[in-house]
C-alpha cells in the first residue's frame, strides 16, 4: 500500500478541536463532518486537498479529545496519510482502528516542506520526497498492530477471530 501527493504542513500539538470542531459533532455522518476537516487551523484545507495528499506535522499530533471523528474526517476528505514527529495516544489508536495510515518520523516531519510532492510506502515505511529525491525510514508498526491494519481495522480483525 502506498500514497502519493502534495504536502500540507502543520505545527506541533495540532489538537482534535481544530481537526474537527465540536460544534459539528451533532452528527456522526462522515461525509458531512469531513466538510469541516481542519477548519479552525486551515479553512482552505478541504478545498485544496486532492486524494492521496499527505499531512506533515510536528509533535503530539491529534492531542485532546478522544473523538474518532478526527482521524475519520482526515481520511474521508481524501488525505492519504499523516506523517508526524509523534502522535497523541488516543488519536494513534483511533487512526489504526479506522484505517487512516499514520507514520512517525521525526526527520521527515522536520525536513519535508509544504507543497513538496511525496511518496509514502506503508509496507516498508519508506517516505520519498519526490521534490528533492530525499528518502526517510519511518518507525515500523509492531506486528500486533500491523495485523489490525492488514485485516482492515480492529472490528474486522476481531470478527475474523
Amino acid at each position, binding site marked *: 500500500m502506498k500514497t502519493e501527493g502534495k504536502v500540507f504542513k502543520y505545527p506541533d500539538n495540532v489538537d482534535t*478541536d*481544530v481537526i474537527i470542531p*465540536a460544534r459539528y459533532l451533532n452528527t456522526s455522518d462522515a461525509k458531512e463532518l469531513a466538510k469541516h476537516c481542519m477548519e479552525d*487551523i486551515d479553512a482552505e484545507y478541504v478545498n485544496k486537498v486532492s486524494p492521496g495528499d499527505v499531512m506533515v506535522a510536528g509533535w503530539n499530533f491529534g492531542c485532546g479529545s*478522544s473523538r474518532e471523528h478526527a482521524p475519520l474526517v482526515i481520511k474521508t476528505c481524501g488525505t492519504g496519510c499523516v506523517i508526524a514527529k509523534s502522535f*497523541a*495516544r488516543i488519536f494513534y489508536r483511533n487512526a489504526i482502528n479506522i484505517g487512516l495510515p499514520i507514520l512517525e518520523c521525526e526527520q521527515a516531519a522536520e525536513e519535508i516542506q509544504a507543497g513538496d510532492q511525496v511518496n509514502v510506502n506503508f509496507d516498508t515505511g519508506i517516505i520519498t520526497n519526490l521534490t528533492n529525491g530525499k528518502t526517510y525510514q519511518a518507525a515500523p508498526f509492531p506486528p500486533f498492530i500491523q495485523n489490525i491494519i492488514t485485516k482492515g481495522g480492529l472490528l474486522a480483525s476481531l470478527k475474523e477471530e
Partner: protein
Amino acid sequence: MGMTMTQKILAAHAGLDAVTAGQLINAKLDIVLGNDITTPVAVNEFKKAGFDRVFDKDRIAIVLDHFVPNKDIKAAEQSKQCREFACSHCVSHFYDVGKMGIEHALLPEQGVVTAGDCIIGADSHTCTYGALGAFSTGVGSTDMAAGMATGMAWFKVPSAIRFELTGQLPANCSGKDVILTIIGMIGVDGALYKSMEFTGSGVASLTMDDRLCICNMAIEAGAKNGIFPVDDVTKNYMEGRCERTPVVYTADPDAEYEKVIEIDLSKIVPTVACPHLPENTHPAAELSEIRIDQVVIGSCTNGRMEDMEAAYETLKGKQVAPGVRCIIIPATMQIYRECVERGYVTAFIDAGAVVSTPTCGPCLGGYMGILAAGERCVATTNRNFVGRMGHVDSEVYLASPATAAASALTGYITAPKEVVR
C-alpha cells in the same frame, strides 16, 4: 523487577503474573463507557461489524451529557440513537436527562467505578477514575464498540512518571492548581503514552474532589492514565457507594519509573493556563491586567461539590462585575440538588450568575456559553485550544473554581484569597 500500580492492575486483568512496559496485552474490562457524541459512532461500528449482543449489560455505561438537554435536532437524533441502543441491549447504566450528570463526575458518585477496575471510555477524560485507584483510560468509538462486544481491549503496558507529593496545599489552592502546575512543568506531551502515578505524604491532604480533578487532566499532559494510591480518603469515599467490591493494588517498592518529580504542595499558587495550550501556565496574580467577558464554573474537571462550595464562598453576598456573564454548571443532578438545598443556587442568582442543569455544553464549544470573536473566558474546564469554546479568535483561560469566581467579581483575572475547603 517490580511493577507500578498501573502495571499491577493491567497484569491482573490480563491474567498474567507480571507485565513490563511496552508489552502488548489483552485485558478484561470492568466498565466500558460512552457518551452522546461517541456512542452513536460506536453503535454504527458495532452493527456494521455484525455484533448483535453486548458482553455484559451491567458493565456498559452510556451517559448523555455533551449536548443534552438536546441543543438541536441533530443532537436529539444522536441521543435517540443512544437511548434505543441502551434500551434494546438492556444497558443498566444508562443515564438520560433527569438522571444524568457529566460522565466523569457521575460514575464515581454513583459507585459504578471502583478501585482496582480496568476501564475504557470513549471520552478522553475517562482517566479521571484513577483517583479511585483504578486503571482508566480514554479510547475512541471503535475501541468502545469492540469493548462492548467482547469485554476486552488491547493495551501497550505504559511506563510511568512518579509524582512525589509532599506538604499541604495553601488555603486558596485546590487540585486544579496542582495539575495545571504539573502540566506547565512537563508540557502537553510530557507524559505521552505514560502513566502519571501520584504518591507521597502529600496525598493524604488531598480530598477526593482534588484527586478526581488531578487525574481528569492527566490526558492534558498526553498521559495514558493518572492514578492515586488507595488510602483512607478513598476508602471513606467508596464505602457504601460502590456497587462492586473495591480491589486495592499497590506499586511494588522496586517498581521502575522513568522519572520522579517532586511537588511540594505548600509551594503551589493559584495557576492559570493561558491560550491556547494547557501548558501555557502562569500564576493568576501575574495576569491581573487581563479583562474577561465570561466565567464558566463546571465541567468534568471542576463541577463537583467542593467546586460549587468554592464558588459559593467567593460569590455569596457579592455581585458579578458588570459586563461579565457567569455561568455555573453543577456536574450531576445530585450536586445540583445539593446546591439548591444549601442555598447556593439562590446565592449564585443573587450575585448575578446563572445556574444550568448538568451539561458539558460550553467546555467544548457545544452550547450554553459560546464565545464571540475577541471574547475572553476564565473557565474551570480542561482545554483552551483555538476555538475550543467558540469563535477561533476567542480565548479561554483555565483556572480553579476559586480563581474563576474571584475573576467573575472583578472582571479581570484575579487570584483568590482564602477559600474554605
